[in-house]
């Protein structure tokens, strides 16, 4: 755990010999920030870990590490600091998983080796969607060209690999990847959907 979290000496603004009251205040602020950015941090971790159980575990470790290192943080950079702690914790968890040769997270040497779609579904239980969001997603999806819709549907909902999708659609893999890429970019740029997700 030596690499977990920024070392207090890394921060030039570390107060010299903080009194107990200041430290308590700083801890309270870090704790509040952890709660405030909880969803963002968990989504960030999910992008790295692809497993909800690992995400929950890593978030807890991030929370504890942040509290323990609260004295070293500059408040203006608090969010970035939390991301760094979360990333380091995620790396530590991945290394641990690799050592244990766990099946929770597949080795990512082969891009076609994906985790089980059944495991992927509902990986973010905390990420509860409103009907308004669902409707916006459906409308955004419908606005895409049909080819992009089909690739997204098969990859996201059916959990198929891009190679499988390319074989099914009798298309080159590059074409399928391009459609997926364009579709996701268009969805990201969809103003209404973006507005809802930002909320």
């Amino acid at each position: 755990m030596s690499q977990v979290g920024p070392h207090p000496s890394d921060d030039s603004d570390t107060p010299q010999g903080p009194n107990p009251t200041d430290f308590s205040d700083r801890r309270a602020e870090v704790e509040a920030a952890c709660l405030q950015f909880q969803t963002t941090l968990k989504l960030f971790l999910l992008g790295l870990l692809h497993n909800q159980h690992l995400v929950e575990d890593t978030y807890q470790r991030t929370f504890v590490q942040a509290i323990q290192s609260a004295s070293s943080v500059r408040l203006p950079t608090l969010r970035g600091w939390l991301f760094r702690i979360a990333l380091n914790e995620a790396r530590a968890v991945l290394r641990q998983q690799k050592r244990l040769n766990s099946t929770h997270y597949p080795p990512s040497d082969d891009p076609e080796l994906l985790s089980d779609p059944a495991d992927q579904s509902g990986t973010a239980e905390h990420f509860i969607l409103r009907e308004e969001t669902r409707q916006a997603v459906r409308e955004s999806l419908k606005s895409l060209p049909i080819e992009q819709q089909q690739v997204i549907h098969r990859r996201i909902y059916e959990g198929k690999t891009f190679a499988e999708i390319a074989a099914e659609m009798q298309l080159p893999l590059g074409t399928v990847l391009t459609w997926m890429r364009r579709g996701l970019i268009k969805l990201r740029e969809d103003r209404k959907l973006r507005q809802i997700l930002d909320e």
Partner: protein
Amino acid sequence: MTESDFSTSDVSWLLARCALGELTADQQARLEDQLLHDEQLCLQLAETVALVETLRQTPLASQPTRRVSAALISVRSFAAVAAVLALLVLPAALSRTVQPDVLHDAVTFSSMLQTEPAESRSSETDMWAAADLPEPPDWLLTALDLDEQSGDSDSSPAAPVIDDEEEALF
């Protein structure tokens, strides 16, 4: 597409592949190194994961199929209606030029055939008829043949049987 647009979409695609778990170990390690020093990139990754998760948790009724746009439907509908109308109107339009004559001929022929007994026709009448009347249409001849056949086989003929010679004159 400018270079900056391309690089932006490139990063977006890299993050999307990360969110989907498609990166190789090397790619993942390189991205993590970038994430370590780029808070905005971390936020973008969180947003991308949010998008993927949103898609994942939005059930769709069925797999999308090739849709036909409303404009295309209307064009196809118009073409189908036009074709049907053309089939209906064209024969009528073509026959309209001769229809009055045909009707006139039909009435003339039918009245002659029904009111004039065969034995009463003189050769002069036949000659007059042949000279001044046009050829009867085939459908009328066929109808008359059928009528005669039904009259032969049936005891109650379609055309009234005229027994009275006086009435026959009218």
